[in-house]
């Protein structure tokens, strides 16, 4: 009775340096730039809602529905930003808790 030998495990690339290519092209904005511009948009929309609410309170000729719509828009964008932050923090914690 003959037992066939187990082949040696070959780990070919363990001594080589990692030469991965980036997913995004050289002209694409970096991730932090993307996050920064999104936060800037959110800040603009919050400022807009704040300014329209102040204008209404000061008695200027602003209709109430415009103020409410601006505030709702800012609210939706803020919720969106909070959800994005939650996902990023989740992913980061998954990585930091990884057992090696």
């Amino acid at each position, binding site marked *: 009775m003959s037992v066939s030998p187990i082949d040696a495990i070959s780990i070919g690339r363990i001594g080589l340096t990692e030469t991965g290519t980036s997913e995004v092209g050289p002209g694409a904005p970096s991730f932090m730039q993307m996050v920064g511009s999104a936060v800037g948009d959110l800040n603009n929309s919050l400022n807009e809602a704040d300014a329209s609410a102040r204008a209404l309170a000061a008695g200027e000729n602003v*209709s109430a*529905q*415009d103020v409410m*719509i601006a505030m*709702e*828009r800012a609210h*939706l*964008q803020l*919720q*969106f930003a909070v*959800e994005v932050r*939650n996902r990023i923090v989740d992913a980061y914690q998954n990585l930091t808790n990884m057992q090696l």
Partner: protein
Amino acid sequence: MSVDAIFAASRFGLEFERLRLEAATSNIAVANTPTAPGRPAQLMRAVVNYGDGFDTILGEADTAMQPSLVAINAPGREVHDASDPMADKNGMVTYPKVDLVQEMSTLTDAERAYEANVRAFNTLRGMALHSLDIGSGT
């Protein structure tokens, strides 16, 4: 966000219905006010200015439709009252010819349409908030 266009549509509808209500209120308010002799009676009406600029023709303009109030000449209703200081040389006083039944139904119609616009906006808002719950169920 892609919901901005629907926000703009809702805003347009709300603004237009508010102007219709304002026009009907103004018309009811002037129904018993005599007009100056020699001048046509004027009633308010909510209209939409379709922008006719080059941008609009090309479809490039963002705010093509802007609702506004305009005063239109209306027929008058003549009443004989020589003691009124607004009477003309024949002793006739002219009032704007306001159809009160039509103005009242415009009031009700505009209010209901405003509610419908608010309902549509709230539905969109609820959908946008629910879309943030995708994937967050435990």
